[in-house]
């Protein structure tokens, strides 16, 4: 990468960052509108039993800044959010941001890990069938990838837990971090990553997309002229045939994997963002669910930012536009 290529990348990066900021603004607006338009009063759930008198209720609502017109509320909420104050969780009474970040980090590990596993499975299969074409071995491979991606992930999780606790007797029956000092703690970390990596339902799609891209690139003219030149095809085909499709898949599959994470965290009661979101949905705990939705959107946008950076770095034409 010569120095002269840095400037166009910075240009495109700034454009992508601006788009990302705009999109996150849109996300916050959508989140706010959904909660603002909700029929029930957000606090009726919490305040049912405890504060019967009307003034007390208005007092609490005042603190939450509910009565003013909606767009002022939105702006104050947005301003608060930008300054790091995501409001306080109704159930836990703790400020939302530190909680969500702590939990968000462990979900990030889960997501990245499972993404790696999906790619570890999908890329070899796609490479094999792109090179060998359809023969007797590639049929069972594709069929098993279909079956795996149709697997309901929560059932698969239970089976895996059962297998590890009963057959191998590795873990105690009760799960969660509380089992400190356990001998196989690191293995315990890997389990949900493995389950989500295999069971997030995208493997067959990833394989089909990668094989399709590789097949297309193999038929390109410049690959034929590389062969005519006696140069190695893989060196020429790597960028467009493998690097760009893989980054594209990563960026487009992150939302699906985050969705799957909610379920896997529930199965393994892994203290992640998904589990907290589930809890918040149960208790209609608004600030928490809003914080999580925004953080999830940030993850997704980071993924697509990463993809466009790689695309521009590799493809000189894009940086000139």
């Amino acid at each position: 990468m010569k120095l002269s290529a840095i400037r166009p990348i910075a240009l495109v990066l700034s454009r992508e960052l601006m788009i990302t900021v705009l999109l996150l603004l849109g996300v916050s607006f959508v989140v706010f509108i959904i909660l603002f338009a909700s029929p029930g009063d957000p606090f009726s759930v919490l305040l049912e039993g405890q504060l019967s008198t009307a003034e007390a209720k208005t007092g609490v609502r005042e603190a939450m800044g509910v009565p003013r017109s909606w767009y002022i509320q939105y702006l104050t909420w947005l301003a608060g959010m930008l300054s790091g104050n995501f409001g306080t969780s109704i159930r836990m009474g703790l400020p939302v941001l530190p909680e969500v970040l702590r939990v968000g980090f462990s979900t990030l590990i889960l997501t990245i890990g499972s993404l790696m596993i999906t790619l570890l499975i999908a890329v070899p299969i796609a490479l094999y069938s792109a090179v060998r074409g359809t023969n007797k071995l590639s049929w069972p491979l594709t069929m098993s990838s279909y079956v795996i991606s149709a697997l309901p992930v929560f059932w698969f999780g239970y089976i895996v837990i059962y297998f590890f606790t009963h057959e191998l007797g590795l873990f105690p029956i009760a799960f969660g971090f509380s089992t400190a000092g356990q001998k196989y703690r690191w293995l315990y970390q890997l389990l949900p990553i493995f389950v989500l990596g295999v069971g997030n339902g995208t493997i067959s799609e990833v394989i089909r997309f990668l094989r399709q891209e590789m097949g297309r690139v193999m038929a390109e003219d410049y690959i034929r002229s590389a062969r005519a030149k006696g140069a190695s095809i893989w060196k020429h085909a790597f960028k467009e045939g493998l690097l760009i499709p893989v980054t594209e898949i990563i960026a487009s599959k992150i939302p699906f994997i985050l969705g799957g994470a909610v379920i896997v965290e529930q199965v393994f009661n892994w203290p992640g963002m998904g589990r907290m979101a589930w809890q918040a949905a149960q208790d209609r705990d608004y600030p928490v669910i809003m914080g999580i939705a925004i953080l999830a959107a940030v993850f997704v946008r980071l993924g697509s930012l990463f993809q466009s950076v790689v695309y521009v770095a590799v493809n000189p034409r894009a940086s000139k536009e």
Partner: protein
Amino acid sequence: MTKTILEVIDLKKHFTHRKGLFSFFKEQQQSIPAVDGASFYLKENETLGLVGESGCGKTTIGRTILRLEKPTSGKIIFDGKDITSIPTDQLRQLRSQMQMIFQDLDAALNPKMHVRDILSEAITVHHRISDAEVDKRISDLLEQVKLKKSKLSSFPHELSGGEKRRVSVARVLSVGAKFIVADEPTSALDVSIQAQVVNLLRQLQNQIGLSYLFISHDLRVVELISHKVAVMYLGKIVEIGLSDRIASKARHPYTHILWSSLLEKQSKETEQKAKSVRAGRWGVFDFERPTAGCRFAPRCPVYESRGKPTICTDAASEPRLKDLGGAHQVACHFPL
């Protein structure tokens, strides 16, 4: 006296290229002058050839005349009516008289429809007629374009190049077109099929009295088929005249170079003689930003040999089409 079917006055078409998501904020619109003031006329039952290198805007002129692209300025008068900015529903009525043959063989043929449906849809688009009449009309069309009846029930991808071109010509005739813009109709075809299509177009012209705007970069075919030829360079018409006058006694340096580069005219011995005219920085053909004044100046051997006269390159004295008599116009300060 034959009536002029089409007249184009100072037609301009600039494409605005918008930069990404924020262009309408920053108004950073870079406009590329694809067609920069072209004016010519076309008589009935006549063919006007339009030649020039790729990227000189000849296809854009054809599409703008048919209002497939919105003209930036200038006037288009078709059959006496000014159609530059008439609303689309009135335009749709006129469409039946002016039609286009596209360069891509598959352009007009929907791959999911049989040839019979393609033709019947074209026939019934402007006026409802009974099925019996449609069949009769289809068989007439097949006669005109000399296509076997058995081809009616096949799909476009089963046809050969020549047959595809014949179906697109039949489709154009079925609407009752009088004026046809033919955009490189022969360039995607083989030599022997090309000859058949050229003959077909000329027979139709004699039988039905069609008039063509024949766009091509194949000079030999244009010379054969057209009565008058217009030569374009970077969006401007630099010379118009009768086709044999243009070929033999070209008055614009660019036209002369175009025709002299026709290979078979140059047998090996006469190669040296032609070398002199093509001196100058001719080797490189690059779309440098068009300088003011005559756009051909940076590559014009006459401009070099006359010691780069300033008249050629200052904006005020940009060469306009001057009539040299005998319906021959040229836009150059020093015609050959």
